[in-house]
């Protein structure tokens, strides 16, 4: 058994008395660069958070693929399990969704990011969060001077409630029955009327502290990349009729200094774990990172044949 293989290392970081466990994807600095040299070159790091309550590999191991690919491009990538999730110490908070939506994990992520920047001599860190992870990322960023950018995939800005069995059954009925679909359309139409009457103000269940975090970061000019997946009965960035258009609202609120990039990824799903989603997220990340945080990978740098083979494979199917 070894903690350290050519391209990755299993690492632990103590935070608030708990051992957080994660994976470090070493940046490709060329065969001449030792680990120490790689660290001295002050690359930016990417910190991937859990997708909801799932382990750090994410659905279909998509986060492994993105971290592999970006490390190959020269970025130090870290995927960590937050307390109570995956391999990390602690118990999952209960009820977890309320904890996450209240920014409960933010201090831990902030402390983790600071330690990673110091330990690996990084120039700073970009926090990457998906869905509930994006909520945590947004809450953590204002607490973290070392955070230089955010990537939010399919974020949400309202306070969802954990679904009851009845709510799940109702949802199934509207999905699979013609009458249910009609009832659902009518319900959302009435919600649309109510939204119009409110003149585009966030609805009662908006996560206002989260919206304030967004405004603080966007107006300060922090680079933020938002990737949006198609949602049920919606069209590109626009949500379903009757749902509040948070992205449009936030774009309008962000101010002249904002460096927010929003992209819609077609033909994928919420997890981005399918072929199309993986490839598109990777392309968007590489382009956005290249524009905002260019890597310093030496030209012509090569890893061993095994790593090179993995890289070729990544191009075809970014696992």
């Amino acid at each position, binding site marked *: 058994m070894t903690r350290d293989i050519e391209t990755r290392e299993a690492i632990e970081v103590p935070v608030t008395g708990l051992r957080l466990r994660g994976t470090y994807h070493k940046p490709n600095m060329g065969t001449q660069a030792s680990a120490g040299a790689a660290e001295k070159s002050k690359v930016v790091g990417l910190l991937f958070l859990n997708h909801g309550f799932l382990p750090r590999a994410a659905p279909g191991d998509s986060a492994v693929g993105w971290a592999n690919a970006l490390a190959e491009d020269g970025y130090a990538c870290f995927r960590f399990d937050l307390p*109570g999730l995956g391999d990390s110490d602690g118990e*999952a908070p209960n009820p977890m969704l309320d904890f996450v939506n209240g920014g409960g994990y933010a201090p831990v992520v902030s402390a983790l990011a600071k330690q990673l920047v110091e330990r690996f001599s990084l120039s700073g860190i970009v926090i990457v969060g998906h869905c509930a992870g994006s909520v945590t990322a947004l809450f953590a960023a204002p607490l973290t001077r070392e955070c230089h950018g955010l990537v939010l995939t399919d974020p949400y800005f309202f306070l969802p409630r954990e*679904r009851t069995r009845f709510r799940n059954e109702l949802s199934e009925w509207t999905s699979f029955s013609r009458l249910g679909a009609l009832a659902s359309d009518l319900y959302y139409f009435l919600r649309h009327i109510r939204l119009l009457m409110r003149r585009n103000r966030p609805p009662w269940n908006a996560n206002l502290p989260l919206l304030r975090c967004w405004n603080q970061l966007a107006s300060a000019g922090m680079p933020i990349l938002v990737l949006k997946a198609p949602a049920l009965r919606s069209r590109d960035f626009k949500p379903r009729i009757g749902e509040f258009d948070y992205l449009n609202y936030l774009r309008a609120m962000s101010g002249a200094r904002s460096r927010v990039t929003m992209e819609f990824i077609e033909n994928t799903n919420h997890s981005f774990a399918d072929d199309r989603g993986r490839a598109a997220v990777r392309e968007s990340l590489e382009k956005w990172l290249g524009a905002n945080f260019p890597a310093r990978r030496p030209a012509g740098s090569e890893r061993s044949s095994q790593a090179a083979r993995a890289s070729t494979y990544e191009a075809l199917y970014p696992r």
Partner: protein
Amino acid sequence: MVETLRQADNRAIEEAGYFEVPGGHLYTVLHAVEDPLARVLLVGPFASERHYSYIPWVRWARFLAARRIECLRYDYRGVGESTGAFEEMSFGDWVEDVRLLADWFKSRSGPAPLIVHGLELGAVLAAKNFDAGVGDALLLWAPPASANHALRSTLLRRISVDQAFRYGDERRPASSYIAQLESGETLEVEGYRWTARLWRDSFDLELPQGMDDEHAGSLNSERPIRSVKLGRQETPLIKGSSVGWEAISKDFSDLFEDNLEWIIDSVSVHAWGNV
């Protein structure tokens, strides 16, 4: 001794690392204990199911380690934190993973009986190895009759999610997905690319005879075997793809206590003499 075993002692050390296998590295987490009474090799569920069952699976390992039972859990080759390309892997590779890890685990200092413990598809992999002589006892949770049964139930859940996002004629019946695999094409299932070969081979990987019975061999076999059926109440340990946030902190203490008792009995009655 039984009472001593049941008392939790949280001095176990968790060591994550990589174990070299042909063509890659397996990600492993060793829940190391001093002077272990037994060792349990945890063979987890298949690919996408791994993610949903992860929290209770880790809790189970910690529960055992806190009771002086050393555990080793790992990711299949090409899955999770292990290296390798999923679609290049075969059931043969995953059966081999169990054998290689069992050999290493058994060789750790401080002799103790080795229990091979599998969940869902992992139960078939564990049983195949046990049948070939690996381990001193076998504990199966929710074993499918064959690998194909495990794949099929994962596939059906993927189809039901697909259908929730499609309307009318866009919805394809399950037979159409299966036909795609049987015609030699690949199929993306919850982020994993299933190959036609994987599907075809899954019919041949069957649970060895007599191991699907809940009481199989538990009393008469020289090496104890236990097979436990798990139902919907054990979500997200199984059928995890349908799990919601409310299941994260689910209490599995009854299941854990019951199986700990069986492990203790097996260690006490059967296996000590073979160590």
